[in-house]
Structures are given as structure tokens and as C-alpha cells.
């Protein structure tokens, strides 16, 4: 009974949402450091926004942590070399979609780090930097949101003068099925993450930080609750498991009951959201001077026996990772990211990038879509939509190319969580169409302005 009451009090977002099978198959596997590859390739576009400009040339010798591509524009992030070695090529290389993008190829020779980076594993708790120094450091180290969107973190902390941050929210929800990197991070590097959060509290000026964790990770909740006794400004909030709780707007709603207005950023309601793994990267950046040169990957799948949580240097060839775990025979699809929002990898001969959080193997049966039949207006898509949209209406509007009507029906509010497609009993590609419509509607609005 007591347990039930506790459940009832647990917070979650109110509108829509679904309950996919959580399949956290790799939650018990410790993070393993993946060996260095011989040859690595780094795309210059690893973040949301403008691609970075290479600052090295063919034949240059680089060390670990050396800047190799500089951020461009307001929304941009630096890229540092995760290897020591020689730059062999700067050429277009096919990314995971198969599109050729500029990339820097490095022949790895040894593991020589830049002198200013502290490579010792000891925990450094005391933060000596000031607010602006922390933000500069985050910018310099090329840190992006590691929840998947890869939005440059420092941009979030350029807070407009008339705005005040009331809450710093740390997203440790990990609502996507299969992925367990955030979970492992909380169990293995919790103290480091908490120092990172303290630094973000200084940077944002927020009085309190709320960590949102779904209640399917009781060990992580208990562990962090134990540790925050030394951190009076940090609170942990267990949340009722529901997808897409890890979406920024849904998490803000769940924790603070505030609603971000349509088309606005969380700062509008006095909130900044950061992922827990990003906090770890921030800890490394400000305490150890270590730029973002690694990504944490869950390699999982129902048919995969050798499930792993890996720490991989950026630019590692995917093939090496796949060979390391062994591709299951009945694989029908390989996905980068979670099964709900991730994208199928069309080209396996590509390389690890910032924000790549998992590689999933879907077996043949799981990866095929059911046969699409007609919509019967059952409304299950509306029920699942966390943004109060009507996917059954939007999808045909996109098919009819009526983008004015799409805009009027709020297509731009779609967070692309895929709940509608997941719920649809007729297997209609609702999200697929809405994504097309979103792009076209945005293009239409841009045209209207110009």
C-alpha cells in the first residue's frame, strides 16, 4: 500500500505519452573503454548548426585534445583531435546516411596527449572558475548536448538579460528503450556528474538543480540520492516511466509544471535543461581541461549476445565496433540512437560522432513495418501525442501539400518522438510524413519572410 501511494505521488507529464517495452538489456554491463583504432575519420559537422572549419592540414601532426576544426557561426562547436597521429586526408566521406560530408582523416600513432589536459582519474571537487570562465571553457572544449540533438551547450547559457533561470534541469530520464549509457554514467561517474552540475549551477545562476530520473532505474536514484547529501542545491526527482519523458518540454512539464510556449526555448519559462552525460563532459572540461573527444555508446539488441556499454573515441570506424561485438545473423536493421527517435544507418562504413548514444541491432522481424492500411480515425495517434497535435490530420495535409493548413495545425510543434507512428494500428508512416511537412512548412515560412 505504501509503495502504491509513493507511485501515485511520482511526477510525470500529463499529455499523451506511450509505454514501449523498455528493453534495458545492457543496464548491468559496465562501461568499457574501446581500444584505439588505427585509422579514424572525424566529420567537421558533428553538431546542430553550422559545420566547423578545419584548422589543420594534410600532413600535420596532431596530439590528443588539439583543436582540429573551429566553430563557425553562433551555433557551432569546436572539434578536437581524439588521437595523436598524422592528418592524412581532408576529403568528403560518406556519413551514416550515405551523404558525403567533409571529414578529417587521422592515422593514429600512439596516444600522446596535450600537456594541459589532466589525465589522472582522481576526482577534483572544488570549482575555481567563475561564471564566464565556465561558459568559455564549455565553448572552447566543443561540448554539445549528448542527449542526441547535439545542440552546442554554451549557447544555452547565453541567457538574455531580462531572463532569470529558476531551475536547472538535469535530464537523466533516458526514456528511449535499450539505451543505458546515462544509467551507467549515474552509477559509475555520479560524483563527477554532480561536480559538473555544480559548475552549471554557477554558470546559469539558478538556485536549484533538479535531476529527473525515471523509476525504472531505482539503483541510480538511490545512488544519486545518497551522494547529493553533500550538494544542498541539487535535488533528485524520480519520475513515472513514460515515453517521451526525456523530451525537453515534457521533462520541464513533469518537474516544474511549466509549459514552454509554442516555438520558444525553455529559457522563456526560466529553465535550462542539460543531459547527465553532458554534465560529465562538462566536469572533464572544467576540471581536467579535457575537450569532448569521446562518446558513450550502448551496443544492444535482442539477438545480440555480447551487449556492451562502450566509451569510444570520436571518429572510430563503426565497422570496428560492429566486429568487436559481432553482428547477429538475423539483423534486419542497424539503428544509431534509440529505437523510437534514432535513424537507421544506411551506410555502416562510417564513423562515431558526437552525440551518437547507441547502436542497436533490430532483427529481421522487428525491423519490417507492417502493411499500411487505411486510417479509420481511431484517434490513437492523438492519444499518444505529447504535444496535443493531431497526426491523423497532419499526415494527409502533408500529402496534399497544404502547408498553410499544416502551420495552422501546429506542425512545427512536433517533437518527432514517434508516439503516433508507434500507436497507429494501421502502420501509417505518420511521423515520416510530418517530418517532411515540417521541413516544407519551415521553408515556406522562410520564403514568406524573404
Amino acid at each position, binding site marked *: 500500500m505504501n509503495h502504491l501511494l509513493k507511485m501515485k505521488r511520482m511526477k510525470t507529464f500529463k499529455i499523451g505519452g506511450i509505454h514501449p517495452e523498455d528493453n534495458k538489456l545492457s543496464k548491468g554491463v559496465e562501461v568499457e573503454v574501446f581500444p584505439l583504432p588505427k585509422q579514424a575519420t572525424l566529420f567537421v559537422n558533428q553538431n546542430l548548426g553550422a559545420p566547423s572549419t578545419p584548422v589543420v592540414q594534410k600532413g600535420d601532426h596532431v596530439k590528443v585534445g588539439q583543436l582540429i576544426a573551429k566553430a563557425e557561426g553562433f551555433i557551432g562547436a569546436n572539434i578536437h583531435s581524439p588521437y595523436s597521429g598524422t592528418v592524412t586526408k581532408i576529403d568528403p566521406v560518406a556519413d551514416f546516411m*550515405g551523404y558525403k560530408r567533409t571529414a578529417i582523416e587521422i592515422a593514429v600513432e600512439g596516444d600522446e596527449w596535450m600537456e594541459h589536459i589532466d589525465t589522472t582519474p582522481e576526482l577534483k571537487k572544488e570549482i575555481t572558475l567563475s561564471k564566464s570562465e565556465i561558459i568559455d571553457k564549455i565553448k572552447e572544449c566543443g561540448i554539445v548536448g549528448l542527449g542526441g540533438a547535439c545542440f552546442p551547450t554554451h549557447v544555452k547559457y547565453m541567457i538574455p538579460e531580462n531572463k532569470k533561470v529558476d531551475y536547472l534541469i538535469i535530464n537523466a530520464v533516458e526514456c528511449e528503450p535499450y539505451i543505458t549509457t546515462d544509467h551507467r554514467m549515474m552509477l559509475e561517474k555520479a560524483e563527477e556528474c554532480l561536480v559538473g552540475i555544480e559548475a552549471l549551477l554557477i554558470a546559469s545562476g539558478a538556485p536549484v538543480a533538479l535531476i529527473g530520473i525515471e523509476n525504472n532505474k531505482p539503483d541510480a536514484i538511490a545512488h544519486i540520492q545518497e551522494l547529493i547529501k553533500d550538494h544542498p542545491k541539487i535535488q533528485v526527482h524520480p519520475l513515472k516511466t513514460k515515453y517521451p519523458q526525456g523530451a525537453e518540454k515534457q521533462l520541464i512539464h513533469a518537474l516544474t509544471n511549466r509549459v514552454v510556449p509554442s516555438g520558444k526555448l525553455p529559457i522563456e519559462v526560466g529553465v535550462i535543461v542539460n543531459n547527465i552525460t553532458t554534465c560529465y563532459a562538462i566536469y572533464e572540461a572544467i576540471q581536467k581541461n579535457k575537450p569532448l573527444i569521446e562518446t558513450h555508446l550502448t551496443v544492444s539488441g535482442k539477438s545480440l549476445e555480447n551487449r556492451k556499454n562502450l566509451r569510444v573515441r570520436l571518429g572510430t570506424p563503426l565497422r570496428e565496433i560492429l566486429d568487436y561485438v559481432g553482428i547477429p545473423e538475423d539483423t534486419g536493421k542497424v539503428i544509431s540512437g534509440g529505437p523510437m527517435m534514432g535513424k537507421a544507418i544506411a551506410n555502416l562504413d562510417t564513423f562515431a560522432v558526437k552525440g551518437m548514444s547507441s547502436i542497436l541491432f533490430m532483427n529481421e522481424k522487428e525491423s519490417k513495418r507492417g502493411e499500411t492500411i487505411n486510417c479509420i480515425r481511431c484517434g490513437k495517434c492523438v492519444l499518444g501525442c505529447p504535444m496535443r497535435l493531431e497526426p491523423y490530420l497532419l499526415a494527409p495535409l502533408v500529402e496534399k501539400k497544404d502547408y498553410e493548413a499544416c502551420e495552422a495545425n501546429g506542425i512545427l510543434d512536433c517533437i518527432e518522438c514517434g508516439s503516433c507512428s508507434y500507436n497507429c494500428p494501421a502502420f501509417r508512416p505518420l511521423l*515520416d510524413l510530418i517530418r517532411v511537412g515540417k521541413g516544407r512548412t519551415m521553408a515556406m515560412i522562410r520564403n514568406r519572410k524573404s
Partner: protein
Amino acid sequence: MDYKIIIIATVVLGIIGLVSAVILYYIAKKFRVEEDPLIDEVAELLPGANCGGCGYPGCKGLAEAIVKAGSLDGLNCPAGGSSTMDNIAGLLGLSADATEPKIAVLRCNGTCELAPAKSLYDSALSCAYANTLFAGESGCQYGCLGCGDCVTVCQFDAIYMDPETKLPTVIEDKCVACGACVKACPRTLLELRNKGKRGMRIYVACSNQEKGGVARKNCSVACIGCSKCVQVCPHDAITVNNFLAYIDFNKCKLCRKCVEVCPTGAIHEVNFPPRKPKQQTEEVNSSNESLA
């Protein structure tokens, strides 16, 4: 009793009808929009498919534009072709520009066999969406995605998906060169080109702008930008930009030298009679002529 009800109903409805008719008549008189009767006449001559190929919203739009402009400069109905424009010119007492008949041409030949699939696409059947997701089943980021956006957009049923090659095929007799498919293709693989004499035309059936080796990895008939065709062309009709050859159909004299020299077979000739016999008959013809 029963009769009365029927009579009353008929009379009441009749009066309502009459009053409404009078109101409608006066409104129609008062708010009459003066419209040039010529517009309707011109619209009558147009095909009426409302394909939008002329750049105006529908046939009536073009008719209005023609009547308003008072000339046919720059106004053309690609669907109707020169005969339609001649008819309109005759009606208005103007002279129409002579336009060459055109046809939509697919600048990709990445069939299932020549550009084998490396991945499978299983999502919304729309090129526009597939284009945002991946480079294509063959891995060529310039090639045809094969989802048929051009087929759905064609108002004249002039394109169909060939199930064997998985490439859209243009039906020559039906294509009116309205350009709807050109706009629909997210990779602008379709191009309106001159139909040519007796339908004979030569074009580069590839849009790949990668270096030769890279392009050939995904597709055996890709243009590798070797420029052999440029050297051999006697009419300066071919240019190579970004490792891709382009034949200017206004300059091309259909000599077919480039087709012979192309190492990958990326240059296509259409509707030419078979090569060997034709050369022989030509020789025979010319010898006959010289004899005569």
C-alpha cells in the same frame, strides 16, 4: 383537406422561389463583373489540364495573362505545344514564338542491376522524405531514389515506375513537358530537353558530381568526368563541371560521337535507328546521290 395542404405548400414554395429569383436577378445585374470574353475563348483553346507547367495557376490563369499582355512573348503552354499556341495566336491575331517540342528526360541510369542496392528503404513512399533520410539504396547521393514522386505528380500519366529497373520511365507520346516532375524531384534528376528530330536525342544519363572512382563504386554507368566526350564533340556542345558532363541540347547536332567514346556508357542515345545498318544505308544513299 389533403388537397389544401398540397396547394398551400406549392403556393408558398412558389412564392419563395419567385422572390428569391427576383433578388438573385437584381444582385447578378448590380454586382456583375465585367470580364473580357476573350479570356474564356482563349481558355477554351488551352488543354484544360491545369498542370501549371506555364507557371500560372491553371489554364484560366494563363489565358488571363495572355489577354492582358496582348502579346505571346514569354507566354507558352508547354502541354499544348506549338499547335495550341498557333491556335491562340490565330484567335488574337498575334504571332506565336516557334518553340521546340520538349520532353522530360531522366538523368540517371542507376538501375537495380547497374547500381546494386546496399540498403533497403522501408518508409513513407516519397522521394522528398527518403532524400532527408539517406543517400539512396545504391549509396549514390545524386541518383534516383525510386519512390516515384515524379509519377504521382504527373497529370498526364506520362511517367511510370519500371518494376525491373526501379527507375521512372517517361512515355514519349504522353509527356507534354509541363515540368511538374522536374519540380517534384528532390534531386532535380529530370530535365526538360528538346525532343529532337524524329525524337532523336542524346543526353548524359547521370547526375553524379563525385570523382570518377568514388562514383563508380556505387554505379557502373556513372559519368566519371573523363572529358573524352568534350574532346570528341565537334560542336562544343559538351561541358564538364564537377566531374559531370552536360550536353547542351541547343548545340548538339546528334552526331553520336560522344556516345561511342564514353567509357562507362553514361551517354544515352534515344530513338536512333540501329547503328550498323544506318551507317550502311547512309553510305548507300550518299553514293546514290553522288551517282545521280
